[in-house]
């Protein structure tokens, strides 16, 4: 492989540190960049001199020191706020369930950062995502493939990337399990070898998503209704619900059949949340919008493939029809708890074909 100028996005975690180390060891000219994404007002001092993620920035800097590469911090807080945080809030306000990690990959790491890197003379952006990328940076037709570590695979949150974005990406960890990455970090003397994995939404520090949304969107009371329209309870905001949710519905009277109720649909304008029995969650057909086909040409005929409907969710055999900006997905077997706003990522085996955003769902036709 030729020597490339590589910009390594370094979060301060173990994965991106090992990814950068591998890129440097492969002979590339690597520069580490930590993205300052948060503008947590509590840490602002006298205007704009403070910022947060201090500990992560320090961890990233120390990893760069150990690897022996230059290191900088890029301030992307404004872009992140607009493209990820605001998008997250807006999606909930529309009754959708967003995936902010996916949006961050799409808009921040592989748009804002990649564009700036390319303009500054870099050939590729390297991250610590657990996914494999066939072919070399700069080549066309590179395929995104699941990580060998199924439990850590992140191909789903990268499924939104276009082939142009993938052509300038570098994911050095796709052939390695997380356990091996940690061992390698320790062997390389990287202090972050034992740093815990991040799980929660990174911009909601206390992990309380409902509280965060309530502060952003305020109180918007509405009703909980059964499929037949019978009112069975009330709520403070329809954004507090996700399709398939069972707990915390505060239903005031038991259903006639005595069986548990699940959120079936969220109507943000009338603030009506419809609940019903588990089988009413079964989805047979999905309309999705804004398809991106990175692993194949935009299909002109129906294709049979696998589709994943949420992060770390299972894969369903399906047939997909593409018509312009719309994709109709017919699942061979019904799926439960499919939420608008999530991505449908299409796979051929372990290879990503493309993705689209779930807009509407329909029950399985009776023939099932």
């Amino acid at each position: 492989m030729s020597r490339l100028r590589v910009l390594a996005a370094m979060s301060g975690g173990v994965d991106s540190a090992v990814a950068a180390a591998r890129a440097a060891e492969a002979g590339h000219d690597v520069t580490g960049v930590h993205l300052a994404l948060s503008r947590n007002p509590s840490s602002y001092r006298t205007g704009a001199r403070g910022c947060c993620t201090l500990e992560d920035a320090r961890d990233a800097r120390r990893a760069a020191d150990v690897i022996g590469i230059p290191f900088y911090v890029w301030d992307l807080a404004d872009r992140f706020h607009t493209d990820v945080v605001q998008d997250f809030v807006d999606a909930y306000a529309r009754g959708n369930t967003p995936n902010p990690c996916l949006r961050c990959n799409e808009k921040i790491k592989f748009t804002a950062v990649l564009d700036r890197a390319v303009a500054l003379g870099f050939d590729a952006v390297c991250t610590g995502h657990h996914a494999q990328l066939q072919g070399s940076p700069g080549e066309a037709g590179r395929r995104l493939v699941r990580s060998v570590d199924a439990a850590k695979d992140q191909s789903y949150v990268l499924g939104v990337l276009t082939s142009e974005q993938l052509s300038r990406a570098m994911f050095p960890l796709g052939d390695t399990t997380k356990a091996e990455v940690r061992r390698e970090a320790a062997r390389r003397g990287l202090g972050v070898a034992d740093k815990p994995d991040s799980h929660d939404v990174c911009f909601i520090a206390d992990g309380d998503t409902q509280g965060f949304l309530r502060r952003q969107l305020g109180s918007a009371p509405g009703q909980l209704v059964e499929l037949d329209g019978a009112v069975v309870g009330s709520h403070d905001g329809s954004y507090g619900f996700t399709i398939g949710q069972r707990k915390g519905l505060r239903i005031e009277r038991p259903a006639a059949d005595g069986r548990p109720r699940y959120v079936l649909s969220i109507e943000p304008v009338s603030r009506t949340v419809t609940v019903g029995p588990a089988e009413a969650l079964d989805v047979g057909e999905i309309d999705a919008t804004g398809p991106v086909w990175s692993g194949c040409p935009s299909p002109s005929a129906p294709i049979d493939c696998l589709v994943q409907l949420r992060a770390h969710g299972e894969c369903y055999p399906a047939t997909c029809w593409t018509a312009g900006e719309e994709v109709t997905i017919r699942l061979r077997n019904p799926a439960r708890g499919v939420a608008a706003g999530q991505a449908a990522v299409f796979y051929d085996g372990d290879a990503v074909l493309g993705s689209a955003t779930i807009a509407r769902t329909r029950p399985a036709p009776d023939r099932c």
Partner: protein
Amino acid sequence: MSERAAADHSVAGGDGAAAYLDHAATTPMLPAAVAAMTAELAELGNASSLHNAGRRARRVVEESRELIAETYGAKPSEVVFTSGGTEADNLAVKGLFWARTAAEPGRRRVLATAIEHHAVLDSVRWLADHEDADADWLPVDGNGRLSVATLADAIERDPASVAMISVMWANNEVGTVQPIAELASLAAEYEIPFHSDAVQAAGQLPVSLAATGATALTITAHKIGGPVGAGALLLSKGAEPVPVLHGGGQERDVRSGTLDVPAIRAFAAAVEVTAGRRPDEAKRLAALRDDLIAQVLAAVPDAILNGSPPGPDRLPANAHFSFPGCEGDALLMLLDARGIACSTGSACTAGVAQPSHVLLAMGADEARARGSLRFSLGHSSEQADVDALGAVIGEVAERARRAAR
């Protein structure tokens, strides 16, 4: 040349032809200072001890004090050693404010320019937030210069309410030199304590406590070829700031703490060398600086030189530009990758470059403030450093401009 080697060594990540153009951040230690410091590190003695070893250490301190006093127009007793410029600024601003308000509780107003170094700026803000001070920020013109009339107006609004005044001798970012002697004598007419942060000026201009009549001046070793961690407040006789550090009562009871004898000896060694060659060196650096400005403007015709035009109102070793359409951090990174070290101004703790409060106070908009770079020269600077910058700045600015789109 060993000084040159020291400069090369300090460029992180640089390979080969490194040009260190960030002497205003810190400048290589002079060989005489390194020799003095290493010799003293091997010696024993607390300068406050009464035995032979203590007397030996004390003698080193006092000889250093005399040399520094002589150079900067002060009596030996007017040199208060500190850990550096930040501590000296804190002592001057807080200490003089507290002393004056203790004597006259009605004096709560602190006058300072909006372009002070953060050591002064944030000390004044702290007094306003915690000690009931009234921060009165003095405006500067588009070149970053404070007029005597502006200070006079500010005092005249209510002379009896002013506790102290702090105006930097020369600005650390854009290099603008203030009319310190006139400002200090105006303050003296009203009997208002006047402090000036002379950290940037001390190696390049004839800085003198006596000649200006200021109450206090801040200087620091590492900007003039001495070590980091040593500085002084030149404090005129009779001025009694309330201490910030309490303890053993060293340094006129104003600054407690065991004296750092090796650093003080090296500080004096650097002052001696720097003062001896200052007039010639200032001319040499001004000529280099003028060439740097010419080369940058030739390569990037729309670049804007910030601060006063070259001449008596600008530090000889400073050049500061805004590059329209560019982000300062992109310029810095591209230059760093080409072995050229410069500065964008201040960064937060995490490392994010911040828009300069100095440029904003000079009337620049945020984009111009963000798209700026400081190049500063020093004793190890040579024509080759300037040429190295001139050779790449055009391409670098063009690339940074594309990245900002």
